[in-house]
């Protein structure tokens, strides 16, 4: 059976309404896409400001979000996402799941890499093998369910799976589905990390990367898809680490797009008539992990006491300035699996006190919140600290840099630690690795090991019917609200800002900026 795009629980109107509700007004930025009703014209250089520089041009070795932003313009995944997170054909024009452990992909014909070589089934097999065997591959976990890849004919591949994996299709919409020219990999080897000339099939091709200065891509004149763009001659990415300066560069006309507007700047950007702001709901879930392997949070009642003492509405309003919505769990409102009937945990001081008594600490207890030394994280931790103090819980704040945070998390050296996850299109990416009992390193920093949760997580991978999966995720969300390995705070919105001359940008909730249809007025 051919699987069509999933039936998203939010339609576009609801989706935009959600943004409007979250930000208090209909975002003027929507004009960016509606203005594309005008006739697009070719030409121009789009100048993009990012907060940091790319780390590598090899999608199989990449672990950075900025890299993905660039890849989605020079490489193409086998499958793609639409604005409702539905799965659309990409380099694979259709897919069939003959049985739970076999996925057939029919590939697009007539696609060439920018180095002139053909894209075909052998290429797909080569890429998956590389992701699975290359020693430095960061994609191993994502393609772990693929046992082997058979070439059925030059444009058909069969993926033999180790176990049923309902999340695999969504995984193939990002780096794990991106196809790199085998010729480039074989001839250039490690140089691909710095130079992706000819390596992709995407609408733009790599030109140069002057480290610490800029990365330049240009229109792929022989792009296979002749409908619509690419219109831009070039896209120039620049790293500007300071958010204020990045915004000022946009205001001064030095750049045309910025990838993220800090919540504190959103109101000013909206008020600026020379800028267009666009709220893009994300897949992200920002939360705290609670360490269950040691006191005090090895006691469930104490985890619950903390959750009941925190006022999410106040945090989202006061710290996030409503650039986001309170979270009821790991699944974001943009996902088809989001269950809006489950409310976020409400503050209830009486319940919090009762839970403290149940946990044997009626007068409260001390513990440490570990969080990144970034202004908004610090503010959030301080608000939580004040809220917890009202029931006698004394939270101490430990500010760390990202490396220390990772090492504290991996070694379970924390009581409560912030975790900001950018999210994945399939809810599996926001849940499995955080809550499944796993030996060794995983994102399950809380150390939760709950047979009921494990069984639910496995089942969400085995069942392919989306409505059924949604029910399982609802069940999981409720169970997580009870067990509390993590306290979810906010599903943030990713506001982006543009010069008014930028037209045709289509916001997809994965936050990636695809410029194929973008043009300059």
């Amino acid at each position, binding site marked *: 059976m051919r699987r069509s795009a999933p039936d998203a629980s939010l339609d576009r109107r609801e989706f935009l309404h959600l943004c409007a509700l979250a930000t208090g007004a209909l975002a003027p930025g929507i004009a960016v896409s509606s203005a594309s009703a005008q006739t697009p014209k070719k030409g121009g250089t789009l100048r993009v400001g990012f907060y940091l520089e790319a*780390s590598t041009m090899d999608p199989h070795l990449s*672990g950075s979000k900025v890299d993905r932003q660039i890849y989605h313009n020079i490489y193409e995944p086998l499958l793609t996402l639409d604005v409702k997170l539905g799965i659309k054909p990409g380099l694979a024009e259709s897919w069939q799941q003959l049985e739970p452990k076999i996925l057939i992909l029919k590939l697009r014909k007539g696609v060439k890499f920018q180095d002139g070589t053909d894209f075909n089934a052998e290429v797909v097999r080569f890429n998956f093998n590389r992701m699975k065997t290359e*020693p*430095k*591959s*960061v994609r*191993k*976990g994502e393609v772990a369910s693929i046992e082997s890849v058979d070439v059925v004919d030059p444009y058909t591949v069969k993926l033999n799976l180790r176990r049923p994996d309902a999340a695999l299709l969504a995984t193939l919409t990002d780096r794990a589905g991106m196809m790199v020219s085998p010729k480039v990999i074989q001839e250039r080897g*490690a140089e691909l*990390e*710095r130079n992706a000339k000819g390596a992709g099939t995407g609408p733009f091709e790599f030109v140069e990367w002057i*480290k*610490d*200065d*800029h990365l330049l891509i240009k229109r792929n004149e022989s792009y296979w898809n002749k409908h619509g763009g690419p219109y831009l001659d070039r896209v120039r990415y*620049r*790293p*500007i*680490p*300071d958010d*204020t*300066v*990045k915004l*000022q*560069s946009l*205001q*001064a*006309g*030095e750049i045309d797009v910025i990838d993220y507007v800090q919540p504190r700047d959103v109101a000013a950007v909206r008020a600026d008539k020379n800028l267009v702001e666009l709220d893009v709901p994300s897949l992200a879930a920002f939360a705290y992990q609670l360490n269950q392997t040691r006191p005090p949070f090895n006691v469930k009642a104490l985890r619950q006491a903390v959750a009941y003492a925190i006022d999410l509405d106040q945090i989202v309003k006061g710290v996030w300035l409503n650039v986001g919505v309170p979270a009821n769990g790991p699944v974001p409102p943009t996902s088809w699996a989001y269950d809006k009937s489950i409310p976020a945990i409400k503050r209830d001081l009486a319940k919090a006190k009762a839970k403290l008594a149940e946990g044997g600490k009626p007068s409260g207890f001390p513990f440490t919140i570990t969080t990144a030394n970034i202004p908004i994280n610090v503010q959030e931790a301080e608000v939580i600290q004040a809220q917890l103090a009202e029931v006698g819980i004394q939270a101490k704040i430990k500010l*760390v*840099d*990202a*490396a*220390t945070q*990772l*090492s*504290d998390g*991996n070694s379970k050296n924390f009581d409560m630690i912030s975790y900001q996850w950018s999210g994945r299109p399939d809810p599996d990416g926001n849940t499995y*690795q955080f809550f499944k009992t*796993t030996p*060794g*390193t*995983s*994102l399950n920093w809380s150390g939760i090991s709950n047979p009921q949760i494990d069984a639910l997580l496995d089942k969400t991978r085995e069942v392919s019917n989306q409505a059924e999966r949604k029910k399982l995720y609802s069940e999981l969300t409720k169970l997580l609200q009870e067990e509390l390995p993590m306290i979810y705070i906010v599903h943030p919105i990713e506001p982006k800002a543009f010069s008014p001359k930028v037209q045709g940008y289509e916001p997809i909730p994965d936050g990636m900026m695809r410029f194929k249809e973008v043009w300059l007025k």
Partner: protein
Amino acid sequence: MLVLVTAGVFALIHLTPGDPIDVMMAESVDDSVKANLRRELGLDQPIYVQYAAWMGRLLRGDLGRSIRNGEPVIENVSRRIRPSVQLAALAMAVSLLVATPLGILSAARRNTSVDRVGTTFALFGICMPNFLLALLLIFCFGVKLRWLPISGYLDPLEDGWPGLRSLVLPALTLGLALAAVVTRTLRSSMLEALGEDYVRTARAKGLSEWRVIRGHVLKNALIPVVTVLGLQLGTLIGGAVITEYVFALPGVGRLVVDAVFARDYPLVQGVVLLIAIGFILSNLAVDLLYGWIDPRIRYR
């Protein structure tokens, strides 16, 4: 001295919590991949073995390779040193252009309105945080007047005028703060020299005030100023982190801070060693300058 610096930096960066492999592979949960990489980079060895190996390579002139981008440390630094040196030179020029007349006038016209302007400027320059001055300059000259570019770097030696323009705001940010320090130092050392007997003698000889200042006071007041400038030069090259960060300049300061955040041990060690060498050389230059300025302290 350098050995002490290397040992100190090595110990500090290795004792800081955090692991370069974790940072590099934050999204990967594959333990075997991480373990392989750790072995490949020698990070599984005890710290003294790693230090000995690093020192061994260093003695052969090899600073090692960055863990993050795999490129030799020296290549990383050589890419970044040019903007840093250009920025330091321009900032130094700005500070001298502002501080020399202001310091001299403040001292020569002590307790007049000129002096008050000079000391107020110095007070502001010293008190105002670097990033605030940078943001104010960006707001005025970049956003409102649009005279100068806000961020990014072009090489003045290759791109000429646009390159120079790209360094004006950062050089002003660093230069004005430095000018404040130099103005104060120059003023106080000039005031001290103005009270000396040889100044009274020069005046008694009937020399004009300007000639007294130029020929007798200024030369004697320069020693503390040169000391300050020499110490600041090292700081400007390796430590202009905030200015480089705000103006998105690819300098050495940002390189070392990014390397610390990524726990890129070889890069941190290599850059700090080079900065230390830079400091030692600039101090040596200052010592040699003393002798040139004041023959009484010439080395024999």
